């Protein structure tokens, strides 16, 4: 019997319909309700759960009471176990975190949540990489890679993950600055990497498959990067799982996932450095920057890796920037973006650049602002 944790954030997405960007904060929520906002999440939840109906007898749903999961589960014919009680109509982010904690302790196999980036972040803060999570989108801010494309798909993937078993990959959890977001500026930070079930598109009848397994793609990229590395050159590795794969290919298993590391001669020279430390180390040594696009916006500079500043980039030289990304990652972004803080440098970085996507494979991708 598999256990599925279910957390529904009833207020997620309420801002969108009435032109507000998000519903964090009581004031914003009250404004939204005043503007006639209706809850969106419950419908998304039932849409997801409907696709789990056929595995009802194999899965036990562990959830919160009332509109945070129990109601939706019962409506879909499940007999859920309530693990956390809430006060109907007065749920908060604290409830989300509490529920996630209890589910982790209870040993659920997967937490299916219905909400937005905020919900994803809240749950991730509690479970980290210990419990796989999967989001059914019901928010305006849905930039995190922990979400399935639609609530229905989330249900399907959850069902397959619990019954057949699916591979699991690491997906970014983004932390969006709410204030800035409401003022129309997107400033997101990389919070971390959650474990998310991964369903590769099965295309038996198409002539060729185009998406593969992320992990194998990362390893292929890493293998080529390592082949190309020169002794006597400093490699500045940005955050991310693909750059981490490069480090691991060199036998370095303690690189920082969220920070910038320096590698030379196949050794980890410095871990989780800041701008000053980088500049000092590359004073008299040729260097190459290896970065990966962060978030659905595709920023290669300026989000999550501000340590690789404009000064660092200018010192290293535009020619010595290598961007790495798996085909799957590239399929989620339309262009690459830069925000180095130096508008002139941003301009210089525009145009098409090669992105390493596999072994002996690069793809030309456009960089815009």
């Amino acid at each position, binding site marked *: 019997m598999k256990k599925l944790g279910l957390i529904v954030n009833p207020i997620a997405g309420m801002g969108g319909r009435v032109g507000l960007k998000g519903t964090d904060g009581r004031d914003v929520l009250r404004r939204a309700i005043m503007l006639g906002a209706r809850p969106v999440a419950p419908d998304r939840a039932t849409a997801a759960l409907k696709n789990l109906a056929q595995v009802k007898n194999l899965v036990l749903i562990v959830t919160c009471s009332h509109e945070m999961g129990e109601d939706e589960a019962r409506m879909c014919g499940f007999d859920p176990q309530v693990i956390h009680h809430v006060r109907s109509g007065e749920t908060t982010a604290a409830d989300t975190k509490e529920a996630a904690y209890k589910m982790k302790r209870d040993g659920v196999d997967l937490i299916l949540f219905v909400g937005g980036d905020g919900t994803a972040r809240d749950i991730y803060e509690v479970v980290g990489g210990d419990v796989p999570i999967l989001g059914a989108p019901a928010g305006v801010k849905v930039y995190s890679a922990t979400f399935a494309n639609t609530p*229905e798909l989330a249900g399907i993937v959850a069902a397959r993950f619990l019954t*057949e078993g699916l591979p699991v990959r690491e997906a970014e959890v983004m932390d969006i600055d709410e204030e800035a977001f409401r003022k129309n500026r997107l400033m997101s930070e990389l919070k971390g990497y959650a474990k998310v079930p991964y369903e590769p*598109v*099965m*295309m*038996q*009848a*198409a*002539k*060729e*498959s*185009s998406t593969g397994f992320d992990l194998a793609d990362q390893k292929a990229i890493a293998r080529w990067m390592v082949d190309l590395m020169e002794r006597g050159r400093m490699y500045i590795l940005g955050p991310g799982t693909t750059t981490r794969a490069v480090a691991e290919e060199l036998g370095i298993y303690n690189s920082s996932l969220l920070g910038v590391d320096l590698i030379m001669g196949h050794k980890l020279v410095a871990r989780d450095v800041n701008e000053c430390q980088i500049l000092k180390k590359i004073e008299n040594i040729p260097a190459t920057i290896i970065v990966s696009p962060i978030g659905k916006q595709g920023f290669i500079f300026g989000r999550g890796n501000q340590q690789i500043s404009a000064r660092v980039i200018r010192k290293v030289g535009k020619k010595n920037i290598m961007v790495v990304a798996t085909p799957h990652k590239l399929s989620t972004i339309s262009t690459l973006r830069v925000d180095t803080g130096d508008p002139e440098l941003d301009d210089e970085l525009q*145009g*098409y*650049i*090669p992105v390493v*996507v596999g*072994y*002996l*494979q*690069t*793809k*030309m*991708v*456009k960089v815009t602002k």
Partner: protein
Amino acid sequence: MNMSYHQARWARGDRLEPLVFELSSKDRKGIRLPQKLPARPEIPDELIRDSLELPELSEPEVVRHYTRLSQMNYGVDLVFYPIGSCTMKYNPKICDELAALEEAAFIHPDQDEDTVQGALELMYRLEHFLSEIGGVSRVCLHPSAGAHGELLGMLLTRAYHSSRGEDRSDVIIPDSAHGTNFASGAMAGFHVVIIPSNNRGRVDLEALKAAVSDRTAALMLTNPNTLGLFEDEILEIAEVVHEAGGLLYYDGANMNGVLGKVRPGDMGFDIVHFNLHKTFSTPHGGGGPGAGPVGVVQKLEKFLPVPTVEYDRKRRRYYLDYDRPESVGKIRSFYGNFGVLVKAYVYIMMMGPAGLREVGETAVLNANYVMRKMADVRGFEVKFNGPCKHEVVFSAEPLKRETGVTARDVAKRLLDYGMHAPTYYFPPIVPEALMVEPTETETKEELDRFVLAMRAIAEEARSDPEKLRRAPTRTAIERLDEVKASREPILSWRMYKNRAKL
């Protein structure tokens, strides 16, 4: 639409036709051999095999078994087969008949040249026909298939740059290309650089310019591309690559869209590949044999594989030339799929120049007709404006948004309407892609039937989407558990028996 159609279905118990091993009965035999001669070969005991498990059936049983199997199989002789980029056109029977003649089928490639002048002459003439059709100076008939031809193209590219002392590592390929293009580049040791398509569905010139350098060995392209669109900037593309010192390779999969109208050689391609089992109508045979001859411009001739077929004017005879010191060597045994070459030769002789041009024109008209009629079917859209060539790519995204059914569901349901499904999910740059290539051998009525079927399926998607998800239901067998097939593979009778034991 009248849905009384059902594919032939033989069934017994929990399977369709039993496995041939299950029909076996001791001591039955299906072939009688001639008497062996009185001599005892001296083969050491340790090398003699002890047992061999093969099925034992009489000839009538073998024939019945495989005939029944054939009935549970679609072919172009049975149904409309609009698979994009595959050119499933009618295969003239005269081609098969002549290729089976004794003088064609029962000659050995190592026979003295004087005893196979007919074969050499046929190959020589075919090479010349293809050179003219492709606009190149010389053709090699060796490659057995498309991917094989690509590999040869890559080897020729490497040989060319090597001969000029240049170390060029990059091969540029558009993101809409067939998967084998990327694999062939990598197989030949090149670094593959993928360029995106622009919002017109064609090669993004800006991206191409950013991608070329003094490391560019070649650009691999098909024209029309996999979206069925003509690369109208081909002359600029050729210039960009040639200026950088690279070669242009033509993937012949889509030649049906330009046959007799414009030649790849004239577009600027240096290496031109042909698919005889597509454009030149040799039968697909369930996945082969095919043939993928490769033509080249003059400066690359010396690198072609050995042997080449030559004609000695003085002695009035054809011969095989092995004396080519700069040749890349061989990419397969002997000289190519001769049995397939004969069929293509006959096809070209039957069509003639005007006929081949009509092939190109009608293939394109048929595809545009389908595109026009499908515009009235709600649920499918064509992402790019303007006329297509021989194939058109629809996106079933609108239908998916409306009803949740996917391109695959639509394709599977089409099988229930007595047609083969088009290619789906390819090219990957179009969401929920359905790639349709009608070819010139289809009637207007059949094309109308196709559009009618697609309309009916779209309606079904709205009223009863489960019908599509369950499809096909009128075929020999229903949808198979492909996940289980890969997770618990049973790849032979041996493996099946071992499973049954557990």
